[in-house]
């Protein structure tokens, strides 16, 4: 006998239609925006063909938020924006105002709640980041703590627009890179540096050996028998600690408090403005994992931002600046050591070698 559910189940409805959530002024001028101006850091004014003006106040959030805080944002939206608000692709919140006179009171309320206004124009926007120790099994480090520590140090870069161009920092806790860190001006990346510790006793119970072998990008994992049961062996020299084996097989953990750490990458971008989108390149191969404030990581990032701010020309993104002055100068100006780890030895490595006699002395 089957019992009919009390209410019919609802599935596959997809997301709510966005039009339900658009402020009236946005609905009215949808697709009819003419231009915009930045009135102050974090404050935009979009002007429509109709002459209507929409004011945006952008504030940073910590991304990891309690419902109590979201309700405070909802209250602010009721107070100033007719009950409408939106979030950005970089974890900022935006309040869309019809009345210019509401900008300052809203900014005061946000300041009181501790949410800085900024992130527009030639400034540092909020850091895109991953879950870290808060909620992930493969994280080599925490994300929220590093982001908080870095942004405490770079707070003024968010609230002022005095950088040469926009600056985008991203943070990922392992090589899975759940954030777009591989194309960021500055990327902070959690890394493992010792091979996985094979748990032979549990491996045959929780993993498929062929899938596990196929998961290794360098073919470092081979079938083996351990105490009469199927398992694998690892050619350690071939391991570059990507963690892909751990993703498909829990019996290959590679978290290691002593040897997990952080690497810093620079010069990536996704925008097509001026130069083509590009990957971030290695600046610092390893920094220690030092919670709760990761001073070595903070110092390295601040160093890059300071050197960039001082040396780049107007509108040059970090990668464009480095391409102009050259990588030797980048290492000279930042004081970062250039090591054998900076020279690519994975696939197509030769593409990053200097293939000309053009050298600055």
């Amino acid at each position, binding site marked *: 006998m089957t019992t009919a559910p009390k209410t019919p189940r609802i*599935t596959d409805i997809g997301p709510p239609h966005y039009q*339900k*959530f658009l402020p009236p002024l946005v609905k009215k001028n949808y697709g009819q925006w003419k231009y915009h101006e930045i009135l102050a850091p974090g404050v935009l004014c979009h002007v429509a063909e109709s002459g209507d003006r929409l004011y945006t106040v952008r504030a940073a959030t910590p991304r990891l938020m309690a419902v109590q805080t979201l309700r405070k944002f909802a209250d602010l939206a009721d107070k100033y924006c007719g009950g*409408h608000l939106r979030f*950005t692709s970089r974890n900022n919140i935006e309040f869309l105002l019809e009345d210019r006179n509401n900008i300052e009171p809203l900014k005061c309320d946000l300041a009181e709640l501790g*949410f800085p206004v900024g992130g527009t124009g030639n400034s540092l926007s909020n850091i895109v980041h991953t879950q870290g120790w808060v909620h992930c099994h493969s994280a080599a480090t925490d994300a929220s703590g590093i982001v908080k520590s870095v942004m405490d140090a770079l707070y003024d870069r968010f609230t002022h627009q005095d950088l040469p161009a926009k600056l985008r920092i991203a943070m990922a806790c392992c090589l899975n890179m759940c954030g777009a860190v591989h194309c960021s001006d500055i990327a902070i990346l959690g890394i493992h540096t010792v091979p996985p510790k094979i748990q032979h006793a549990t491996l045959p119970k929780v993993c498929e050996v062929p899938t596990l072998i196929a998961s290794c990008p360098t073919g470092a994992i081979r079938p083996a028998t351990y105490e009469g049961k199927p398992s694998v062996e690892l050619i350690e020299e071939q391991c570059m600690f990507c963690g892909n084996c751990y993703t498909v097989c829990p019996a290959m953990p590679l978290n290691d408090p002593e040897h997990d750490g952080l690497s810093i990458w620079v010069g990536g971008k996704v925008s097509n403005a*001026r130069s083509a989108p590009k990957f971030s390149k290695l600046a610092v191969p390893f920094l220690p994992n030092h*919670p709760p404030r990761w001073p070595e990581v903070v110092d390295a990032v601040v160093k890059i931002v300071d050197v960039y701010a001082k040396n780049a020309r107007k509108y040059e993104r970090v990668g464009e600046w480095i391409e102009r002055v050259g990588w030797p100068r980048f290492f000279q100006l930042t004081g970062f050591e250039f090591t054998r780890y900076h020279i690519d030895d994975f696939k197509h490595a030769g593409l990053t070698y200097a293939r000309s006699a053009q050298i600055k002395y």
Partner: protein
Amino acid sequence: MDDASNGKPKTELLDQLEEGPWPSFVKEIKAASQGSEKATDLLRQLERSYEERKGHWKHGGMVGVLGYGGGVIGRYSDLPEEFPQVAHFHTMRVNHPAGWFYTSDALRTICDIWERHGSGMTNMHGSTGDIILLGTTTDQLEPTFQELAQNGFDLGGSGSAVRTPNCCVGMARCEWACFDTMKLCYDVTQAYQDELHRPAFAYKFKFKFAGCPNDCVASIARADLSVIGTWKDDIQVDDAEVANYAAAGVDIQKEVCDLCPTKTMGWDGKKLSIDNRECVHCMHCINVLPKALRPGKERGAVVLIGAKAPIMQGALLSSVLIPFVPAEELLDTLKELVKRIWDFWDEYGTNRERVGELIQRVGMPAFLDGIGLEPVPEMVAAPRDNPYIFFETKNGGAK
């Protein structure tokens, strides 16, 4: 170790992250722990991770809601006796409304549901774009899902499926949107509900829609199928506004013309001239002079394929597949294209091989043959520079 005097968890390391001007996630977890024992144990376990420099979440776990194969990330503590409230601490991905617009009522509804069923902790938003609801037990997944559904929300994608499509703010608040990103994102999401909720692919497949080449959703870096708005005709110029910028101190020659990647602009002190044939539609001049310059009127998008993060053969940027699709033809073109791409990927993709990696393995020419697309020079930065050409041999070589 709890502080006996007030019953609150002792978190000496995390407490240091309440200091400083930037908003503190520790304050957020503490706020949630006022109403949720789950959030309290999350805080205690996180403090342990900070002490030991090591995560304490076990690997995955298959949990979900009835009839779906995704949308929930199973998560279990490896210290369940010490932190029983996070012994099961699953994440729910909720498909966000396009452009991340909300009403305060909708936001409160999500908060209320999540406070009843979960830890009260969220991410606004996850990297792919979803609303992330962090931390609940297996028995709460279905009730949470159904309450969300009754309020118009559905789960997002996870695993080897279509992942929640994402887009920039587009025409809702940007003068540069060359197509309606929010509409296309919504339509594509609705078209592929089955592929989104029931993983049937070799690996994940991501769509991202950016309204202009500034690419505010990083589609070229992160989407298997990247759709980036652009235009074909001349940049619209308002000479009077160019003059106003110049009068206000913008050095048009240095800041605009000299930084044009194809040096296709001229400035004689009065008038800006553009040889639009040489324009690559990079957006720099329009970014600098938004009041004076605008994208042309013949608008549409470039469709690119294959971006991904490093796992497993290395990171890729998307590359051009169709140089221009008129805005009004985008949805139909994408549906036809995606059908052919998925057919080819189903046939030839290996386990956990993204489309970009499949193309690297079999070669772009074979991929183009497979999906029935003619090669065009816009697809390459340059033709090949090696002579190892796989001429077709079935007809006895090239003629």
